[in-house]
């Protein structure tokens, strides 16, 4: 454990990004962002569509190489150790999570195998997940038969299957009903309390308030970074929603959106 990975609070940083930049030709999608995420922290990664969130996350998950700048994720360099990064983190995408025509058990077994868990371990964790989500009756049905909310919760559990220290969630509650959304967030809290760091993106501004800290990206840069309470006080607003609007459309003018 080198000192660089220890934040000011003395906790190990699971993400440490310094001046992270990504260019596509003439277009700078991510413009030198600097932030860190501590162990067990729930970090909200916010921004409008096209602000650079997806690109930033792709760099942090080892899917895209940075053009310049530097970031370590779970102590590994994203530029030079991207494969190792992928093995150690968890990831849940909005677009795709589980194979619909496989059953719950089969999905868990598949991912367990991918992450190198022994079959005994897979069985044990499968039982644990099924019990936690109260899905005993549906454990051998195709995932397709589950309603969306349950699928998302299951996908989250599977993302945590190999007990990663950090998990990335991309709009995990999109379209889900309000009760299941909150149950999902309770799962996030549980995971965080257990020491797993969570970096989550969302369009639901009330969910931003659930996070320990948030960052708001505008045009490739981080325009705000801190705990929701701090930011609200600093900018004199009542909610993150208000802050978001203010930052994304400065002076109420219709800035070119793209």
């Amino acid at each position: 454990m080198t000192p660089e990975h220890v934040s000011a609070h003395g906790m190990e940083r699971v993400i440490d990004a310094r001046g992270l930049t990504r260019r596509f030709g003439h277009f700078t999608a991510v413009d030198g962002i600097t932030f860190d995420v501590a162990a067990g922290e729930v970090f909200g990664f916010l921004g409008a569509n096209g602000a650079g969130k997806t690109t930033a996350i792709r760099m942090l998950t080892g899917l895209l190489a940075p053009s310049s700048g530097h970031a370590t994720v779970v102590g590994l360099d994203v530029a030079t150790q991207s494969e190792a990064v992928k093995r150690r983190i968890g990831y849940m995408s909005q677009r795709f999570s589980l194979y619909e025509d496989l059953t719950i058990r089969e999905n868990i077994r598949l991912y367990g195998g991918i992450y190198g868990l022994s079959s005994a371990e897979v069985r044990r964790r499968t039982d644990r997940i099924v019990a936690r989500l109260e899905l005993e009756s549906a454990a051998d049905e195709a995932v397709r038969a589950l309603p969306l909310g349950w699928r998302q919760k299951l996908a989250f559990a599977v993302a945590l299957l190999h007990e990663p220290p950090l998990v990335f969630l991309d709009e995990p509650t999109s379209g889900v009903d309000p009760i299941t959304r909150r149950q999902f967030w309770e799962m996030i809290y549980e995971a965080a309390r257990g020491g797993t760091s969570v970096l989550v993106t969302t369009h639901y501004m009330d969910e931003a308030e659930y996070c320990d800290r948030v960052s708001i990206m505008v045009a490739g840069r981080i325009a705000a970074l801190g705990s929701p309470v701090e930011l609200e006080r600093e900018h004199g607003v009542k909610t993150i929603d208000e802050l978001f609007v203010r930052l994304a459309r400065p002076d109420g003018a219709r800035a070119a959106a793209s």
Partner: protein
Amino acid sequence: MASAPRSAEAAVEVRDLTRRYGPSIALDGITLSVRAGELFGVIGPDGAGKTTLFRVLATLIVPDGGTARVLGRDVVGDLWDLRRRVGYMAGRFSLYPDLSVAENLCFFAAVFGTTPEREYERIAPIYDQLAAFRDRRAGALSGGMKQKLALCCALVHRPEILLLDEPTTGVDAVSRREFWDLLARLKAGGLTILVSTPYMDEADRCDRIALLQRGRLLGLDTPAAISGAFAGPLLAVRARDRYAALLALRDYAHARTVYPFGATLHYTDDRPDMPADRVAAEVTAFLKTRGLGPVSAEPIAASIEDEFMARMGAPEYASA
């Protein structure tokens, strides 16, 4: 802008509408009506049946049971008549990504026998926000811009009613606000608008709303009436360690539901006739005994979301 025909008949009239997809029921006997000139919201999460409902109204699919009439015409029998009069925005982006903004608009105008120039006044407030991108390919626009373009294309032929299926889904919070501002302007011009959305906060911007969940109507009224129907006291609890407070509160003997709600926790009690202040005091005291530091609990008015959740009848998180 020209106003929609003000007839005594409702703009949309749905009765016992049913529609299945294989074994699952998408719409389970829905009955509702929309008045001319109304901004009507269909609120519900994924799987509620919003898209199915809108597709039936847009004459794209046929219901299994019940009837639906739009602008006084039957959706099954009068489909060609309706297709001329309805402005429809599908649930996912259904414009041509390889055509530019201007080309898309020209095309959809031509299909209805008009041109964007002729209808410029009508679409101006929206098109002005797009004008800078008129030659950009639609596929290269951001989510918010795409939806504005789709709205333009739906409006360009002077429809008598707008059916917008989840126009703000997946769009960032700012673009969403702008979109609803545009809708308010359109409504002010007299256009009847039906919108579906999963975002509960957008419900407040509608004249009336229908709450939809798993194919069933949970409620149909003005936003104020729905949130006002909330039964019993509702507290917003603040604590420094929210998760710990959540778990602790669930242990409280009289807790009916405890849910995170942004910066606070929403607490409902299983004693609906208790005055809210007393409940607040009790809860505060309880939390203090659990050593949760500075906490506050204050009675608040329910939002649409609170009421929606109450009506959902989902497994309630009470330990008692």
